[in-house]
């Protein structure tokens, strides 16, 4: 079975986020008020062939920790979305 997975990678709390800060600074000039705490991150979508959602999550979790994020500065969050026949 194919499991569609999403991994969200965001900077760990306390790590500066210059990209988020730059976007936030640009907002008032564009007429956006009341938007704050902007944080930028990365997103990965992929399919995992696995017997069940748990197995898919485990694979994705390992991939997220070992490759998709750098634990020194980033957190990774895994979501298994839907299931389709392989």
């Amino acid at each position, binding site marked *: 079975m194919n499991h569609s997975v999403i991994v969200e990678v965001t900077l760990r709390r306390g790590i*500066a986020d*210059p*990209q988020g800060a*730059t976007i936030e600074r640009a907002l008032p000039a564009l007429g956006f008020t009341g938007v704050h705490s902007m944080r930028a991150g990365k997103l990965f979508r992929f399919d995992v062939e696995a017997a069940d959602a748990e197995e898919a999550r485990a694979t994705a979790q390992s991939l997220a920790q070992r490759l998709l994020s*750098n634990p*020194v500065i980033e957190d990774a969050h895994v979501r298994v979305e839907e299931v389709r026949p392989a």
Partner: protein
Amino acid sequence: MTRVAVVVFPGSNCEYDVMSAMAQLGASAELVFHSATTLGDVDGVILPGGFAHGDYLRPGAIARFSPVMTAVSDFAAAGGAVLGVCNGFQVLTEAGLLPGALQKNRGLTFLCQPTTLVVSSTRSVLTRAATPGQELVIPINHFSGAYTCDDETYASLVRHDQIVLRYRDNPNGSRDDIAAVSNEAGNVVGLMPHPERAMSTLLGSADGRVLLEGFLGLGVGAGAGRGGGVGAQ
């Protein structure tokens, strides 16, 4: 030290520049492809700059899994001199051979410009021929060069004298102006500036020589630094 391995990942691009700097200093350097499992009989290893695997995902994130990195780790663990320049520094942090991480520059743009560096520790294989407080003009050339680490790591860096070079005018938002760090033993060093680009006044500066000479163990007095005999294997 006269034999150096220059590691080439697909996407590296400063390997020829490092080779030419090595040749200028009389060292014999050889390119070692990322798929190699041994480094050969060498006294030192350099990971050059560039964009290994396109810097896709994160600089160094994919490169650190290359087969050659196991050999580099073993070489470092045995006390061998390992230098990561720019992308090479990023690979070494991703591989856990150096503490911390390199984030995008504060200004969110790539920066290619001369910087003035201040030597802050001469305990490393890179700075053993330099003098503390010495100023060196060496260019930077990177997008992700802001050195980042948590407080605990930072305290440990200071405690073990692992901050090797600092920027005089911080160009990229690095923590505590850090431009280069070493491991605790001082045999593994990463720096964001490019010493191989500062080897001749025709190109603007020759201040990189003292660093690369030091790395090769040239101009190092007996007893100074860790000495030239750090070669392993």
